[in-house]
């Protein structure tokens, strides 16, 4: 059946069963490759997207849950030419090795900074606690989050879109 979604500020329609996890539709129907399949169990965070201002795991979000709720993916935050401040911070701090978990790290950071202006070290670590990194890039990632928090730049994504 046709399901209507609001992704990165655009209304889109996809033909899929309402039980389909959002992740597969983002990747296969909308060619949004930022969110990655990591576990399908909501454990690792590689597939994170923002629903409104909250970071959720798109592998565990059925399309039917999204009625009217705006979805923002890594692509919706910024582009290579005009990256989001959090993306810039991660790039500047070399905060990835293989980069497979990077999507979730950036999404979780954006969500954290939207709810907390000036997070403490333990708030940062807690916010990333359920995002797994196997390369051991944690130190660079923490550095990037701290830098993004310090910069406190305006967040100019589609958060206020209908």
């Amino acid at each position: 059946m046709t399901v209507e979604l609001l992704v990165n500020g655009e209304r889109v329609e996809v033909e899929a069963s309402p039980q389909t996890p959002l992740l597969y539709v983002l990747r296969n129907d909308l060619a949004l490759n930022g969110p990655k399949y990591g576990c399908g169990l909501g454990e690792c965070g590689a597939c994170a997207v923002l629903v409104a201002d909250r970071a959720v795991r798109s592998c565990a979000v059925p399309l039917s849950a999204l009625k009217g709720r705006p979805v923002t993916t890594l692509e919706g935050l910024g582009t290579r030419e005009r990256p989001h401040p959090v993306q810039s911070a991660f790039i500047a701090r070399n905060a990835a090795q293989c980069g497979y978990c990077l999507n979730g790290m950036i999404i979780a950071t954006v969500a954290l900074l939207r709810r907390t202006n000036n997070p403490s070290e333990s708030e940062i670590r807690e916010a990333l606690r359920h995002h797994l990194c196997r390369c051991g890039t944690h130190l660079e990632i923490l550095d990037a989050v701290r830098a993004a928090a310090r910069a406190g730049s305006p967040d100019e994504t589609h958060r206020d879109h209908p």
Partner: protein
Amino acid sequence: MKQPREKPISAYLGDADMLTVTRVSDTGREELFVAIGADGKVRAFNGHVDLGTGIRTALAQIVAEELDVPFQAVEMVLGATEAAPNQGPTIASETIQVTAIPLRQAAATARAHLVRLAAEQLDCVPDDLLVEDGVVRPRAESNRFARYGDLIAGRGIRLRLDAGAALKASSAYRVVGRAQPRIDLPEKATGAFTYVHDVRLPGMLHGRVIRPPYAGFDHGPHVGASLAGVDEGSVADVPGLVCVVTIGDFVGVVATREENAILAMQKLKVTWRDIPAIPDLNRPEEAIRDNPATPRKLADRGDVERALKGVGDIMNRSYVWPFQMHGSIGPSCAVADWRPDGLTVWSGTQNPFPMRSDLSRLMDMPEDLIVVERLEAAGCYGRNCADDVTADAALLSRAAGKPVRVQLTREQEHGWEPKGAGQVIDVRGGLDLEGGPAAYEFETRYPSNLAPTLPLILTGKIPPVAGVAQMGDRTAIPPYAYANMRVTVHDMPPIARASWFRGVSAMPNSFAHESFIDELATAAGVDPIEYRLRYLHDPRAVDLVRAVAERANWQPHTGPFSHGGDGDILYGRGFAYAVYVHGTFPGTAAAWSAWVADVAVNRKTGEIAVTRVVCGQDTGQVVNPDGVRHQIHGNVIQSTSRVLKEEVNFSADAVQSLEWGAYPILRFPEVPQVDVLMVPRPDEPPLGAGESASVPSAAAITNAIFDATGVRFRELPLTPERVRAALNPLPPAPTQEKPKFARRRVAGPLVGAFAGALALGAAVLPWRAPIAPVERPASDMFSAAAIERGRLAAAAGACNVCHIGNDGLAFAGGRALETPFGVVHAPNITPHPEAGIGAWSYPAFERAMRQGVSRDGSHLYPAHPYTSFAKASESDLQALYAYLMQQPASPRKVPQTELRFPFNVRPLMAGWNALYLSSSPVPKDASRGAAWNRGAELVEGLGHCSACHSERNILGAEVKGDRHLGGGYADGWHAPALTALSASPVGWTEDAFYDYLRKGRAADHGPAAGPMAHVVESLAPLPDSDIRAMATYLASLNDKPATDPRSASAGAIEAASAAEPAARMRFPVGARLFEGACASCHNDTAPVASLALNSNVHTETPDNLIQTILHGIPEPVGEREEVMAMPAFGASLSHQAIAELSDYMRARFAPQKPDWADTAGTVRRLATK
């Protein structure tokens, strides 16, 4: 579409605007290393690939440096078989150290040639020229110059690599040795990068594989020969299914959409033969010692036996390393496009060329028809399932005749990735009279790690025979000058499927070397670093050790407890040093590494935190300091994780750790501070930096724990249980303080009748008179108002929870309902004259509803809750009849219900109705108001809540009196008490009941799941007033809460949080499972209600909790604050794990309640249903 394809070598060689530098390989193949275009852009080629380490950036730096072009002008092509040279697998940290050498020479060859051309053009000698950013000009002037691109244009320059080409002096470096940001990050951080997971071809299909039950084991006669059958009919209804593929033990499915391929994978019925048991690898020492081995002597110096004779106290020590996982964050994925005349694969392989030859064998296709496009994947730290999944994709593409993308699941990657092998090391030695090491006898046992590409053995292309490799010898020779030394490696076949994993056997071998010398130092009464330095003669090693000790401000000490403690927390500091030696023995050394680790140990709980690591490394010349620092950080964090937490868990026949709860890795809150020291060696050759810093980890940490506690740990990982057992042994068999509940006696193996099954129990009860059939009533016989009222009655009665057709058609029946009496099939109640109730008159319908007697006079089994319907109003039943008669008729007959002994014996069941069918009316109480009375009618009548929420006696009748609505069972779920008997920590109020029935969740109780979720869905058409009425009535059955719900709920949450440490102590495995598998959603900040309030952890039995873990809540009903569904963990967690998790959750979230009696048995029962 993302369809990356590398240009083949021939395209470069045939381009007149291109300079190329090639070399002819040993096999006669012309291999390209550097190509420079007329636009000045440089492409450089390396057979090694970027596994996420940033090698792409470092290699580009080397080329840019040697060519004198801007860094941005260089693009690296890595691993693609059509373009890159064959330099073997990307292993042993040798990309910079080994495979970059010809690359550098090729760049130097090109530069020298271009400078010569420029000299001719500018009419001067090459020595007078300099090159900057690809522009050649005389040193003395700046207005005459020649660009590389212009020198190349139209000339088609073909150069042979000159291994003797003059290389730049490091003093002249401008790019190498400077921090260079990673090339790939801007794209990776914005979602623009193409990983292998992101490849999409036109017409591409999606495949999934179904692996055999012997997960993680790849040898033995059953491998490739265990498939008993595949029932393709089981997936016939999967939309867009293209094919099911079976070859030996290889099973795969292909569908047009990915979610449907997943569905087919989950639904396909595959039968496997019994498989043999495996050695108990949860105790790897015994299994590895028992594995047949061939000793290979690596060193024999002095006279060990004679030296040991002079030792008073011989130290015999054994060190045990567990099986561990690479644990790529992204399960492997590949795309294959098979055609009769060739195969192209897009792969994340570590080994493009060896894999191509495996594909050639698997597909019976010559290698030169196979193209491997190598794309980046998730980091792998050794060999994961990347090659396996590429072969899977090739097989499925051939079967489907179209390009197919195959994504392994998390469970498949965890289960089947070739593991890092366990290892056992024995050391024998002791002190001589002067306190020096008298002798050192070292024996190491390492199961082999060759792991053939899986589909080759699953399909039977190659025999499932265990090969033996000689890889246990990495860093087996200690770095210390022991005068009397014997080193032996025991080569042995694999046990579990294994491959090389970061540090390979060097990491466990160094664990033994560095623990033992630490112990010698303590025995000799000498500071551990000073003791090492006495026997360490490699000057670069000595420099490094001194530098690291100084950076860490090491305070010499001769025994443990040098750092004191604070209450239960003990502090300690340890040292270890290693050089990682890789390759065929005696091997090649990569970078030197040394650690000082600081730890904090909780002596009560056994928990260990590594708080700080000073890690020094001598990498020789450093190409990209940021890259090397990155590798050191990564190695420190990953190896700390391995040492503290990681071990693969096995069942009796397979790998059992299939997700991150069962295989925990280090998380952000646990990450230590890391201080990196890089020894500057710009004039020494660059060394591999990918693994070295992992190697000293285990000994540094255990030596620090010895400093903190005085106890030596020689087996990993250092789980709290292991540490606690040594530091703080618990009293034997602690007496259970809390009373254990016996499972409450319920009829049969629980599982009561659930809502509304019109079960035909004809065989079990005496016959009554039939009522004559009638014509199906005409459609205009009923008023629209009656039909609408009937619709609501059907909603209130939740008829379709049971009577929904297997095909989704309302009222069509067929669902199999498990009851204590056997399986009951809900009949078809559509108005079909034969298959349904079309021939039933209203009196026949009413008799069935109120008395449980079918039209033909046979008795209905009380799964059909006629005892409740007896209380429904006449007008509701008439309306329901009208409504049902308007439904589409389904001709499908449902299977006959077959009840089991004794319920199929008529005399036993005679008189059931006389005993239990009460025609007592719905309670009425004028003083309670209209809402209460309406609610009573709905709850006790049509709503038939008691059918599930009341216990049943041995004959299946609802228990009355105080226990009416006092909790029962339905379809494998516990239906909690709706009365004051409720076990919930927060009392049920009218508002809570209303929220639950209307919105599918109540703030202080959790969401509706299982059968109740369907009931909530069914109730949706009812007006608010009816829901409110039910809530009013139900609330009246409960005591008025003593405290207000808010503070009761806050109290329960607080109690759970206070109970966490004790629960973690009692159920450490369950605690880790919860942290890894549950806590990402079930945490304090999530909008889902705290589990401390969830009825399922408070009820007397664990059934509902276990059901929810097994099956998840795929689509939560009602109003959703939480958009995430609860995934099913039944295929991801072992039965044992679910039991441990449940026990932990009970202890943590319902701390006042007694332990559940038999969680393991309940899991088995519910999981095998």
